[in-house]
């Protein structure tokens, strides 16, 4: 019997962890001589106070949904995919190559092709670490970290030596043709008569991310393969005994994970930048780890956690704009959230478990 009810495990523990991270963040803000309450108000105002703020919050959230789902899928198969960063980098390359390859007639066609390109490149970048883990027993964490760095080098090489337009000094690809530009949330919501900020970068990729959430949920909890994947993640030996092939699970789970990471590029490369630049991922791959942890590896949780981190990102940018607090505050808060919700989980969990056990004992004694 579990020590505590399910709702406490799913909601109470992460919320208390989050609260602790926030308290320490507030102390950090106090420490550098600023007012944490004013900072929080500014962050909320800047990220949810206008459709412009919402547009940025949802744009960042879209990135984090993809990388969060990527980490969650791998996690269910007991694979620690720390390589989203590299897979999303390569996904960007795939999207850019597709966008620049043909004169696409319409953005819908371009979007489908770019999604295929991004997912394919992302999955390809996850394949070798997965295969090495399954067949040669190489530690997936180390190989995916190494592939992050190799991926950056590949992108650097491609941008400097291959994709850079003639005469440009900037290590970036050419601008994508106009026919590949994705409609923003402004354009979509205008169809149903809702006014939305024209300049914010949130775009149709957000809807793609929502669909991805549903599909991942269906895959994990409503298909035979999803069952096998989760069974393998819970106990490898039991799964093998039930006739599940470890190689198949590891490789396919990592391919899906890498593909989801690669899909992120549809949002940041195709939807926003509309060209490929160096470091376009900006750490979203690592934030995916935090998002999946907070969201307890469930698509719905990932969605909510991604919006939370989108708020942190947009709020942090507003802080840097209007106060003397540098943008790096977000990185600190991010680190604290990962530390408390992930690594120090037991610090919060153990006292809560003890509390529920104590209450149950009291209830039994009272009968």
């Amino acid at each position, binding site marked *: 019997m579990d020590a505590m009810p399910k709702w406490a495990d799913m909601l109470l523990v992460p919320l208390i962890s989050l609260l602790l991270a926030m308290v320490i963040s507030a102390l950090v803000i106090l420490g*550098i001589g600023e007012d944490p309450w004013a900072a929080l108000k500014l962050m909320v105002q800047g990220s949810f106070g206008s459709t412009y703020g919402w547009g940025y919050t949802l744009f960042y959230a879209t990135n984090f949904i993809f990388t969060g789902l990527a980490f969650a899928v791998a996690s269910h198969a007991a694979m620690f995919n*720390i390589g989203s960063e590299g897979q999303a980098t390569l996904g960007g390359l795939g999207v850019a190559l597709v966008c620049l390859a043909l004169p696409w007639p319409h953005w819908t066609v371009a979007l489908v092709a770019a999604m295929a390109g991004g997912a394919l490149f992302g999955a390809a970048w996850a394949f070798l670490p997965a295969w090495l883990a399954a067949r040669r027993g190489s530690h997936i964490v180390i190989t995916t970290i*190494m592939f992050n760095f190799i991926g950056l080098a590949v992108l650097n090489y491609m941008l400097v030596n291959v994709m850079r337009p003639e005469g440009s000094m900037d290590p970036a690809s050419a601008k994508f043709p106009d026919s590949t530009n994705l409609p923003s949330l402004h354009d979509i919501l205008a169809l149903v008569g809702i006014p939305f900020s024209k300049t914010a970068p949130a775009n149709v990729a957000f809807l793609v991310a929502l669909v991805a959430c549903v599909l991942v949920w269906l895959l994990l909890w409503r298909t035979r393969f999803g069952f096998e994947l989760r069974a393998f993640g819970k106990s490898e030996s039991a799964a093998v005994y039930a006739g599940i092939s470890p190689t198949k699970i590891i490789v396919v789970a990592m391919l899906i994970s890498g593909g989801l990471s690669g899909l992120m590029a549809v949002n940041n490369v195709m939807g926003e930048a509309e060209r490929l630049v160096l470091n376009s991922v900006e750490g979203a791959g690592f934030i995916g780890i935090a998002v999946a942890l907070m969201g307890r590896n469930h698509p719905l949780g990932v969605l909510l956690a991604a919006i939370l981190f989108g708020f942190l990102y947009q709020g942090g940018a507003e802080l840097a704009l209007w106060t003397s607090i*540098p943008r790096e505050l977000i*990185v600190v808060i*991010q*680190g604290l959230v990962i530390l408390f919700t992930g690594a*120090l989980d037991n610090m919060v969990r153990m006292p809560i478990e003890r509390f529920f056990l104590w209450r149950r004992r009291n209830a039994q004694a009272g009968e």
Partner: protein
Amino acid sequence: MDTFSTLIQVLDSTLRLATPLLLACLAGLFSERSGIFDIGLEAKMLVSAFFSAAFAYTTGSVWIGLMAGVAASIVFAGIHGIASITFRGNQLISGVALNFLASGMTVLIAQSWFHQGGRTPSLMGGARFEGVELPFAIGPTEAAETGRPLNPLIAEAGPLQQLYSELISGHSILVYIALLAVPATWWVLYRTRFGLRLRAVGENPAAVDTAGISVVGLRYSSMIIVGVLCGLAGAYLATGLQAGFVKDMTAGRGYIALAALIFAKWRPWHALGACLLFGLLQALALRTDVVEALFPFKMPVQLLDSMPYILTVVILAGFVGKAIPPRAGGQPYVKER
């Protein structure tokens, strides 16, 4: 410029670039040998780099800076210990979190302390580690005596003297400490009781516990050693190799050190070899003229940069000897159920 002096220059910068890798790699070795994965080497180097530079600048003494850097690094190692030993959390996640924390915190504090866009002011004089002049070497003293610049003086000397003065002499004290740390690590791990227990706790903590030795105590002491070594590495970056702290100045060195650790298969002498190799690759990446002369085809600098990672994947693939990590690595130890 003749080939010989170019070679010596490249080797000289190899040694300097290998030093932070070596210190961090040995730190990782202590950590992983005691059964704690540490992907947060980067974080500890970074906080140490910042605090050593900040204190060295404020006090004017590089030694006070060094102590501050090591102390900050030990604090971070302690947090990793609390998360992964006491609360039995996921060691990888703790490492990721600490990397973020260090990257953001250093810039945040630097900005509110020095107001120079997240960096420390440049260090000068006693706030930096100067080169140590070994006996009989041609160094700044000789240059001052003869009133001539140093470089031609060395170039005129015999090849052996050139080798000695340029490559072996004239480094900061931390370079020599790093080199001495290799035999010291070997001795501690393989010739002391503490080392035997440390290796045992990374392989089979239950057996160590049964023998009446504290698993928690051993693992925390390895965390302190990690803190000290990473602290030295970070301080060398900010006060020896460069003059001051800049944002994210470790630039992935913590991960290269991790790669070197696997390349060395968790052994101290091999770690020296691996770090020198990766240092050489970094040194070559800085000298494009040498690379062009060495290779008949055009070698992309990105390939050189990513060579340590590629080599590590090849080693991990197990086609060139198998890299087997300590058996209990990454698993928290639960005394009783």
